[in-house]
């Protein structure tokens, strides 16, 4: 039986388990139906997180100011094509770079491979629009590269050809450079957690290293890779800053111009729902293609996947392949940022920055804990519940990641305002006390915003981790009388440690970079590094904004280093 065809869970139904008492069987049946406090809690979380999306969905019942007809006749067709192109290129780009680099650093040893393991994560700390700005600045007609070429060779505008990055390919490259770490990280976790035994078996049966990769490692890592690519695509879809700066119309820029330029909020919300359907379809297609196959490992032997030393040309090639994304996605932009900073950095650089940094750090840390906790709850509910309602609710709740940030930020404001005002009315009518706005404009509101924005990251990552734990583990634990809580806490949590840490890291870094929701939901007088960088960049003061951008990168590196250490310890 091929390893990716582990028996479907139908075949392991409760009645097929031998030697069970009636009590145990009914406990299992109850688990199957998912009617437990934990899944209720999950349903509750999903519902709360879905509120902003539901407030968007409410727009479907209204009719806008006729912008949709105008758009479909003018910019929308090109925007839809661009969006497809962007997804294709970013999807292929992140999958290729992420999977290849993850496999190389996991399965082989070559000069620098130990360092590349964490270096490959660094581009994640670069905000996409910042990398777009610095490359544009450096490669522009007036930038240092082309100016130097013209000065050396005495060329003028018509005398030479220079690659233009302001097209679909260019913007896809920018996004791929900062988004591939999502795939890399999840794929690497998957490769590491794959049992060495399977690989040994494959090799013993005469399979070459590349055959083992294609026939075993890659298919087994598929849920993780799919989750990573889905995250990258959702982020690419939601991107506004980079595509707008590059002059590429996508679904998201059309949503922005409909809302802000034409003042048609309803049409903008309807377009956002259209975007969501797009994502829903994508995720469903992948699941369909994956079918009923299961990807659990059968052995718990935690031995390193045999990392083979490489020598000579092969080592050089592996090093080059892995170093390139780090160079282009991190080293070069970081160098350009330092150069900009030195040419005229932020005038407020100093004690003020410590304050910005502390705010960013607190937000990111708190959000990482809360979002991962909620993500774990949902992933667990998905595992134990076969109720279609739970699955649908969780899928819906985690779509927030793909909606353009500003749109989802406004979606967050609405239910918060409704709740606060309703509570205030109730308290005034019943007790004569005004509560004002209880949550709006507080950190609680901000945490809610992050939960809506980033729950997909946590849930997706942890779900991918769960896929590698066979259901037989759950069945054994339950048969031995473990409660659902103990199953999650004592059995799953240690096995999922790496996935949980990874999810926490990504949420942390994403919150550090997050802009639209932080900007609009935050309390009074509360500035962060991302806000500082954005405000200066939006005034086209690129050099000044470089300082805050560098600070984001530096703080983003800290958790990357911590995570790498934690992962190493877990491995050894």
């Amino acid at each position, binding site marked *: 039986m091929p390893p990716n065809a582990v028996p479907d869970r139908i075949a392991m139904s409760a009645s097929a388990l031998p030697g069970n008492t009636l009590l145990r069987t009914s406990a299992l049946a109850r688990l199957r139906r998912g009617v437990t406090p934990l899944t209720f809690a999950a349903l509750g979380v999903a519902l709360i997180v879905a509120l902003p999306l539901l407030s968007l969905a409410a727009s479907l019942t209204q009719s806008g100011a006729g912008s949709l007809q105008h758009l479909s006749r003018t910019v929308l067709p090109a925007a839809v094509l661009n969006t497809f192109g962007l997804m294709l290129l970013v999807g292929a780009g992140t999958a290729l770079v992420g999977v290849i680099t993850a496999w190389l650093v996991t399965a082989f040893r070559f000069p620098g491979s130990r360092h590349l393991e964490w270096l490959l994560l660094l581009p994640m700390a670069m905000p996409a629009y910042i990398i777009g700005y610095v490359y544009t600045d450096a490669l522009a007609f007036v930038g240092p590269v082309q100016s130097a070429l013209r000065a050396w060779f005495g060329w003028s505008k018509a005398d030479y050809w220079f690659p233009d990055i302001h097209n679909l390919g260019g913007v896809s490259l920018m996004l791929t450079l900062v988004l591939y770490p999502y795939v890399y990280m999840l794929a690497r976790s998957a490769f590491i957690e794959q049992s060495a035994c399977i690989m040994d078996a494959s090799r013993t049966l005469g399979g070459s290293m590349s055959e083992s990769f294609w026939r075993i490692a890659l298919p087994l890592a598929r849920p993780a890779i799919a989750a990573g690519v889905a995250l990258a695509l959702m982020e690419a879809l939601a991107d506004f800053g980079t595509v707008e700066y590059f002059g590429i119309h996508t679904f998201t820029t059309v949503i922005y111009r409909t809302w802000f330029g034409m003042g048609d909020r309803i049409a903008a919300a309807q377009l956002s729902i259209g975007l969501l359907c797009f994502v829903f379809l994508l995720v469903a297609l992948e699941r369909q293609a994956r079918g009923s196959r299961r990807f659990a490992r059968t052995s718990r032997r935690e031995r390193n996947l045999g990392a083979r030393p490489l020598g000579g040309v092969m080592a050089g090639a592996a090093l080059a392949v892995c170093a390139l994304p780090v160079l282009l996605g991190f080293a070069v932009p970081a160098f350009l940022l330092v150069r900009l900073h030195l040419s005229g950095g932020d005038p407020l650089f100093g004690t003020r920055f410590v304050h910005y940094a502390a705010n960013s750090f607190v937000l990111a840390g708190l959000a990482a804990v*809360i979002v991962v906790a909620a993500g774990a709850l949902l992933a667990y509910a998905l595992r134990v519940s076969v109720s279609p309602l739970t699955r649908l609710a969780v899928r819906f709740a985690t779509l927030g990641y793909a909606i353009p940030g500003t749109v989802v930020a406004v979606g967050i404001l609405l239910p918060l305002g409704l709740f606060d005002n309703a509570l205030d009315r109730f308290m005034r009518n019943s007790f004569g006390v005004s509560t*004002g706005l209880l949550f709006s404009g507080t950190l609680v509101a901000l945490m809610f915003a992050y939960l809506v924005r980033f729950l997909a990251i946590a849930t997706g990552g942890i779900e991918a981790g769960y896929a590698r734990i066979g259901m037989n583990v759950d069945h054994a634990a339950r048969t031995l009388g473990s409660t659902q809580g103990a199953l999650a806490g004592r059995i799953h949590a240690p096995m*999922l440690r790496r996935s949980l840490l990874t999810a926490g890291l990504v949420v942390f870094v994403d919150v550090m970079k997050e802009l639209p929701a932080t900007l609009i939901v935050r309390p009074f007088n509360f500035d962060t590094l991302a806000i500082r960088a954005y405000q200066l960049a939006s005034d086209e003061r690129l050099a000044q904004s470089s300082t805050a951008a560098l600070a984001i990168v530096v703080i983003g590196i800290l958790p990357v280093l911590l995570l790498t250490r934690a992962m190493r310890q877990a491995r050894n």
Partner: protein
Amino acid sequence: MYTPTSRRQFLAASAGLTAALSAPAIVRAQAAQVLNLYSSRHYDTDEALYTNFTAATGIRVNRIEAGPDALIERMRAEGANSPADVFVSVDAGRIERARELGLLAPVNSEVLASRVPASLRDPNGYWFGFSSRARVIMYNKDKVSPAELSTYEDLAHPKWKGRLLTRSSTAIYNQSLTGSILAANGEAATEAWARGIVANMARPPRGGDTDQFRACAAGEGDLAIANTYYLGNAIRKPQPADAAVLEKIAVFFPNQAGRGTHINISGGGLCTSSKNPQAAVRFLEYLVSEPAQRFLADGNDEYPVVAGVAPPATIARFGSFKADQLNAGVFARNNAQALQIMDRVGWK
């Protein structure tokens, strides 16, 4: 260890911590002598502006700075309980939208009415402009003589084919400019004009205003449409490569023989939700005082609105000009139609 118990404790602890952290914000917002400002200006010099206001009046200023559209949505969601006292936008279109949505209340102030020119404020006192920027033609002195330049309309002439640089139609400044041309010439002429602009572009629109005049200096095109303050910013804090740019670029104020050069405003108004309208009006009046006008103008190299206050040296060197007297509310209301025209002619 990741047990459910510790997760619950963790969640409770985080919720507690979050509440503790946000409590001061709630208390602050409800204290008496504070003014809550929702502003889409975010220039460092504005801080000195607020500090001076506090020193003069004892009223502290709380700020939330974000994009004007997002701020409008926040005020709408917060409703009558919104803490917002004053809304400030860097574009006439947004402030007019705030008025249309009922978020602004009229202010009857002699000080504001006398110091802010009529074209730069709402006729009924819903909003007031505090500083302005002109959307001008910047040209490469080596390639273009100012004698060849005249009006915005002329930029659509085929003689500029392949020579014009401008940013995307997503930029509000291009929408406002098109809205003002719509007010002056009507829909058909504006559409023909926009078509001409697209035909004359030296490259597909991209980047910001600064990118346009930098490319113009480098010879990628001969003319750029840009706001004055971007060039002012570059003069105030030049990048190493900018020395050559500034040498080659000059400013031309179009339509001087006719209606004047298109200007847009940074402006503000009293919020309907304000619990503290006296303080809010004091703040608005403070913004048109001479020292405040200087801060506002210096902060982003803009033109002060009050007569007698000199613009910062960075933009004063472009010379004085006749500004289009069209009320900002008009081109603001034209915005959606202007954008549809730009969509139709393929202005990306």
